[in-house]
């Protein structure tokens, strides 16, 4: 118990000293408010990166290269990959944040954020297949086999696909929540792989992949105390039974 309290305090400090808690309490978010107001708002917000690309292409067609650069295909591909990765990290952040009492409602958004991650990952890969390679399948196969960062990207997408497909309530029921949870812990592996994908793709010694790697490490480590506790509880129960 003491451990848990301490842990909470740590996250509390981490999320700017309880601002979230106060905000959450002040707003006293009922599930209804979350469903009717927060969720649609977040939905729209998460579409903005996509709208940005369309806007950029429109400017490009009008002769203004300032947003998507002179190479809009490269820009689009990277922008979509960036956002897939960012939403993956946001998905991962929901659980630890929701352990703060006033942020419990965040859990109501998790599935949507996760699906947006997949949506952007899918668009990212589609932009590679359609815009970059224009369905040159031999070349794509060659890339997947020979370019390690693309191999890793492919594995990441393969891990994310069953998660997106089993995201519905019906699927949770069908799988049973334990098996569902097991399956969905694939996201941890996916988050590590996407960092590798990014890190390996970047030229020279750049800062950004390191920042993302740090965030992923923090998010994964933040789960450790809970895990350890769950383990020891299970072990105790087992011992008690014998």
């Amino acid at each position, binding site marked *: 118990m003491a451990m848990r309290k301490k842990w909470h305090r740590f996250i509390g400090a981490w999320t700017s000293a309880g601002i979230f808690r106060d905000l959450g309490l002040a707003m006293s978010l009922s599930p209804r408010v979350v469903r009717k107001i927060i969720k649609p708002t977040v939905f729209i917000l998460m579409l903005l990166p996509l709208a940005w690309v369309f806007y950029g292409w429109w400017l490009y067609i009008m002769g203004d290269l300032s947003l998507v650069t002179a*190479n809009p295909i490269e820009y689009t591909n990277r922008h979509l990959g960036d956002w897939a990765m960012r939403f993956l990290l946001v998905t991962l952040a929901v659980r630890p944040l929701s352990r703060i009492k006033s942020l419990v409602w965040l859990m109501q958004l998790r599935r949507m954020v996760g699906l947006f991650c997949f949506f952007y990952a899918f668009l990212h890969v589609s932009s590679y297949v359609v815009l970059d390679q224009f369905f040159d399948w031999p070349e794509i196969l060659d890339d997947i086999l020979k370019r390690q960062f693309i191999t890793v990207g492919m594995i990441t997408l393969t891990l994310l696909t069953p998660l997106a497909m089993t995201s519905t309530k019906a699927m949770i029921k069908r799988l049973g929540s334990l098996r569902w949870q097991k399956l969905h812990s694939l996201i941890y592996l996916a988050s590590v792989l996407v960092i590798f994908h990014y890190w390996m793709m970047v030229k020279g010694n750049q800062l950004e992949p390191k920042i993302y790697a740090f965030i992923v490490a923090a998010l994964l480590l933040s789960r450790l105390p809970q895990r350890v506790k769950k383990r020891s509880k299970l072990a105790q129960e087992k011992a008690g039974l014998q």
Partner: protein
Amino acid sequence: MLIKKPHAWQMAENEVTSEAHYKNRRQFLRAMGIAATGSVAVTGFPGMALGLTAKAKAVRDLDYKTTEYDPGEDQTSFQAVTSYNNFYEFGTAKSDPADYAHEMTTDPWSITVEGHCGNGGQFALEDVIDFSSLEERIYRHRCVEAWSMVIPWLGVPLASVLQKFGPTAEAKYVQFETYANRDEMWGLSRPVLNWPYVEGLRMDEAMHPLAFMSVGLYGKELLNQNGAPLRLVVPWKYGFKGIKSIIAIRFVSDMPRTSWNESNAREYGFYSNVNPSVQHPRWSQSTERRIGEFFRRDTLMFNGYEEEVASLYRGMDLSRYF
């Protein structure tokens, strides 16, 4: 390692774009027939178009001879050539150089020449480049990242520059170094590469008639993002060999270190000749995207300059010496 003395002009204040410069630039854009797009940008999303309109320095027209070096392909627009650049000293995004390179002081400029040569020393830009004998060269430009452009450069043959300094028989290679001033190039505070940027050529490559020292493009002086005031253009090699904003030339007897090779020798060789059959570990080099086109096109051996330069590499295993 060269120990750099502070140059007098490094103390100069950062250039602030004056109203006059701004107007000049607008006139220039209009002359280039792209002012319309500039104004679309301004009304379309305030602030975003600044990179192209307000931040660039005023550039002079240059007199030059027209060229017989012309691949006869569509030239990449001035706007694309000056807004889509790799110049990591100003940041790693393609748009960074256009946004930040104006902070670099290019006038006055001096070039240090040293090593195995008869007339080394410190030279002003005008002593290195004979501005009365500029010529145009329309070259393909192929980046190692598998995109390409066609650019009408202005400048002089590299050989004509190097000969001035009287390289001796011991000069087997020539190394070039890029200006590096943290106050004017924020990217230098990031350890992306081992700064300052250095590049090099074998002496016979450097003396090849296609190798070019450029001081301008599209009839004007170079903008800073393109490597003002002088940069190398080696059209049969990947773009990163074309070192920008050169402040030092060194004649050496051993193969000099080069920045990308030092950063990752498996991926970037000293030669880095455009070669569709030698694959980069992270990109296929067999095709490329010409900026402004949708479909990829095949990459040509030596970027289409095989006839001219293949003899330089006779007997070499190009998959080993990539």
